[in-house]
């Protein structure tokens, strides 16, 4: 068993106990829903991009890079569909 951190956006770091030989791809799958990780988000460890087959080590911080801000496009689609975010004025 080893302990790693999983980070996405400004979400709090998730300290995760993972089994040995767990890859970035397996971590991505495990945390996709809870952290709402977007498809295709690049993973970095220690600032260096790694592939999904990278095997994590004890103490690694795996950060999935959030997509770059575009300009309201995704939320625009929600608005078009009649769904406003609950915090919109």
């Amino acid at each position: 068993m080893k302990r790693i951190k999983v980070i996405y956006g400004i979400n709090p770091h998730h300290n995760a106990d993972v089994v040995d030989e767990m890859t970035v791809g397996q971590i991505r799958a495990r945390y996709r829903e809870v952290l709402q990780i977007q498809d295709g988000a690049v993973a970095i460890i220690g600032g260096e991009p790694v592939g999904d087959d990278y095997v994590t080590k004890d103490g690694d911080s795996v950060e999935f890079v959030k997509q770059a801000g575009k300009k309201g496009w995704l939320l625009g689609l929600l608005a078009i569909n009649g769904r406003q975010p609950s915090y919109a004025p």
Partner: protein
Amino acid sequence: MNIKCIGIGGVGCLLISVLCRFLAFQSAGKQRISITLIDGDGFEPKNKERQSFKGQGNKAEVKEEELKEEFPQILLSSVPEFIDRFNIENIIKEGDIVFLMVDNHKTRKLVSEYCCRLRDIVLISGGCELTDGTVQVYVRSENQDRSFSLTHVHPEIESPADRSPAEMVSCDELSASSGPQLLFTNLTVAAFMLNAFYVIWIKQKPPYNEVYFDIMEAKTRVIEIKERREERKK
């Protein structure tokens, strides 16, 4: 100092006014400041809650006239066109400082890839959704990358699914391509872009590769990026 401001929308309007004020008085008489505003779009009244223009017309041209009156110390000019692969060589030159404030990844990719071929360039790119956003900083000097390009860890920019305004065929398509925005988020993007500019101006190096923020959480996160590591594979 030659500055190019691409995209005079919600972020651009806020950034340019502050940038002009800073440069007009911080560097008065010390060096020649040239700022070129680039945007092919016209001001629409529906955007008045986030954008400030004194009159109707092309955004770059109207803003140029406004700023010329207020900051005669700065050499202002405008290009009333969307940037595209045909005009980019005439707009972005060696040694420029480029503020990229557009609403599509297709243009980000175009500008980033073009800047990667230059010898000396500073590219500061900002974008946001409704309440969160990103600022990326790409610096290249003496033919060496000092930080990573906009596409480096962003497949959504490397392979953009959208179209640039220059490729859109109708005003309706152009109008529908952008969703709701919040002035405060635009302001935060502008502030981070100017902060990056200031650090580069003072320290001659990029402050970071990328910063992500969320105004609902009042949190930011700097994403440090290095070269790809040798991978430990199964």
